[in-house]
């Protein structure tokens, strides 16, 4: 019994060291807030079109039998600027269907921004008051959702997508390899 008491501090230390090692190596992000939409049907989509003269966006646009990428962006958002070339590449090289949603962004700001950087969006919507963002569990821009042909959300990226995301998940997803 007494000997056990002497080992106790060491045991505690070992336990903590183990936890810290796991925290450092497992890739766990304690600041991640997770996402409840993944694995569920895509939330409601009912938005006016960003580009003048186009029909409004509806749920049917996300259930076409083909994978869809939904990207919330804003012209005032710097990380959006950083990820933009990746969407251009996805559209041009992979022929991906990308739906862009301007979040809390005036049409007069979002349209020139797209004109300047290139517009990779097959469909573009306008979520001026952020209500659709709330339904989608958005925490800010940019955020990107991968939606499969049946309308189920498969991935939710908070923050800009990266080259690595593109190679590891988005491209395999477009080829139907990611469930």
């Amino acid at each position, binding site marked *: 019994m007494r000997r056990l008491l002497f080992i106790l501090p060491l045991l505690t230390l070992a336990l903590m060291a183990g936890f810290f090692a796991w925290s450092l190596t497992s890739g766990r992000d304690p*600041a991640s*807030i*997770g*996402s*409840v*939409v993944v694995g569920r049907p895509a*939330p409601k989509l009912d938005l006016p079109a960003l580009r003048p003269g186009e029909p409004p966006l509806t749920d049917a646009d996300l259930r076409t039998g083909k994978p869809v990428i939904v990207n919330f962006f804003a012209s005032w958002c710097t990380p959006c600027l950083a990820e933009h070339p990746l969407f251009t590449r996805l559209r041009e090289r992979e022929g991906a269907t990308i739906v862009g949603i301007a979040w*809390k962004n005036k049409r007069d700001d979002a349209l020139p921004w797209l004109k300047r950087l290139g517009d990779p969006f097959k469909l573009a919507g306008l979520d001026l*008051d*952020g*209500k659709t*963002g*709330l*339904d*989608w*569990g*958005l*925490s*800010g821009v940019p955020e990107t959702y991968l939606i499969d042909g049946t309308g189920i959300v498969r991935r939710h990226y908070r923050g800009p997508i990266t080259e690595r995301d593109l190679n590891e998940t988005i491209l395999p997803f477009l080829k139907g390899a990611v469930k």
Partner: protein
Amino acid sequence: MIGARRLFFMFLSPLGERLGEGVRRPLTLPLPLAGERSLKALCCVLLLLFTLPALAVEPSEILPDPALETRAREIGRALRCVVCQNQSIDDSSAEVARDMRRAVRERLTAGDSDGDVFAYMVARYGDYVLLKPPFKAGTLILWLGAPFLLLVAGAALLLAARRRRHTPIAAPKPLDEEERRRLDALLKG
């Protein structure tokens, strides 16, 4: 209100001393006797006492119905801002927090109960959005860990105390011949 007492001594005590022309007496009411200057000071102190933490809730968001607004504030304080993660949505000025405050008020105005509003938020942002985590299998350690440890520690203490009480204290050995001689020598000095 930890600061109230301290503020009183910081601001009011010196004033009280200055009042009586060299006579040290505390600030006494009624106020008109205390002079205009100290009245101003008192007002300042009172204002300081009644300051509230700055809320991010903007005047345009506030509901006309005070009862609903009170409920909205209570809910708002219990919902976590998903951007500034240790702030409630009432404290956060993030865009999303503002949207969430507005959604809370919309739901309440539509006749939702408080529980409905929380469910509405959890459906969109998960349990993460609750500043007070729910009691369920995944949070058992969080809720019961500390009380459990306290129980274990208490039980260990109790056991140790009981064991000590039951161990008889052995009577000291009587002195032998040699020791007695040394003691006598010491006592004689």
